[in-house]
């Protein structure tokens, strides 16, 4: 149980990041209800272990707990999805199709679906970088991966997101 002062510190340092926590959970879990539950659980865990967190980046510290809770939830609920960790050795880069490089317009709904179609580990990295504005160093801390892996995973995630967006509209199928 936290001392009174720690509790106030928790309210001041950690509570302001509830949007960041919810947003990350919503995209990793792809659902509002799950995201609410898991965010709440993550805050409880954060609260219990807050004594061990002294100073530093409270947002990164909280988001690390949130993403761990999310991946535990996905495993426990046997969400059929690509859970394999990104590995440069077994997933060599592929040249990008010029068509997807040239792609110009994306509407909101298609982007949302495409982002949800990305494998979970790519999804989280796009959300952390593009929606949350985290630095590479923060992403490395949150996902507990080396910074080099973060860089190549991010490059790959963006490429795959574009590939999905290009597939989403097969030629001639839309007026």
């Amino acid at each position, binding site marked *: *149980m*936290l*001392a*009174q*002062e*720690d*509790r*106030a510190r*928790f309210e*001041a340092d950690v*509570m*302001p990041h*509830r*949007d960041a*926590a*919810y*947003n990350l959970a*919503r*995209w990793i879990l792809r659902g*509002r209800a799950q*995201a*609410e539950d898991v*965010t*709440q659980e993550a*805050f*409880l865990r954060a*609260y219990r272990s807050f004594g061990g967190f002294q100073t530093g980046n409270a947002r990164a510290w909280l988001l690390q707990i949130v993403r761990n809770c999310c991946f535990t939830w996905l495993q426990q609920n046997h969400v059929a999805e690509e859970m394999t960790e990104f590995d440069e050795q077994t997933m060599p*880069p592929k040249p*990008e199709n010029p068509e*997807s*490089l*040239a*792609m*110009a*317009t*994306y*509407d*909101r709904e298609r*982007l*949302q679906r495409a*982002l949800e179609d990305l494998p979970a580990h790519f999804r989280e990295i*796009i959300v952390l*970088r*593009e*929606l*949350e*504005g*985290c*630095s*590479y160093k923060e992403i490395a801390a949150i996902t507990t991966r080396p910074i*080099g892996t973060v*860089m*190549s995973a*991010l*490059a790959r995630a*963006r490429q795959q*997101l*574009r590939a999905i967006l290009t597939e989403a509209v097969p030629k001639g199928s839309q007026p």
Partner: protein
Amino acid sequence: MTCDLTQTRLHAYFDGELDAMGAAEFERHLESCPDCETRLAAEERLRSALVGAQLYARAPETLRRKLQTSLPVAAVSPDVPYVKDPKPSVEKSWRWLAIAATVILAVFLGTQYMERLNRYSQQQAMAAVIVDAHLRSLQPGHLEDVISTDQHTVKPWFDGKIDFAPPVRDFANDGFPLLGGRLDVIDSRTAAALVYGRRKHIVNVFVEKAQPGDAQEASGELQGYHWISWQQNGFTFTAVSDTAYADLDQIKQLFLAP
């Protein structure tokens, strides 16, 4: 630099994660590599689409309420241990003294804590105002009122518009080209906003006349935006951007240098 090698480098450049040397080197490469140029443009389109789609999901009200009520309330620890008191008299006065000391200590700690909390929330409020001003400036047509990379054009532009002469300097040689300036109002104070480019990022530097309550030095981060403020020659400077914190520190040092 071969192009395979530059793949992650391109992303690091795009994300503002290269240092000044690395960025300059990459920019030189970019001039002679149409392939990288195409890729960079594709990354830019994807980012602006992601930003434009407003996919950020804020915590719903139901969750906010749940978070506020679900955290266990800290146990109220008794200030003075409850002791069954079989022998009154002599020890009693000591007990009162202990209680008095505890109360004084508690008040002291409380005040200290409130002060810290107060400073903290002041800083948070300031961060919100600065980041808002920065975001506002990024709306189409809001960035500069006077567009010029020449400090001798930007500086006179402020004449007669504000009651002080902001130090306008171009740091193009150090990787911060001056893009222009405008007037802004930060927390109901008039500020000269100087706009600098930093690779693909925009840095706003707000210059105001220093006031007694201004912090000598402060910095922070809000929603991925870094800001840093300092005082110099009777002005309060605040630099804000989505670029790395080190960049802001660098522009501060450039201003501080004679």
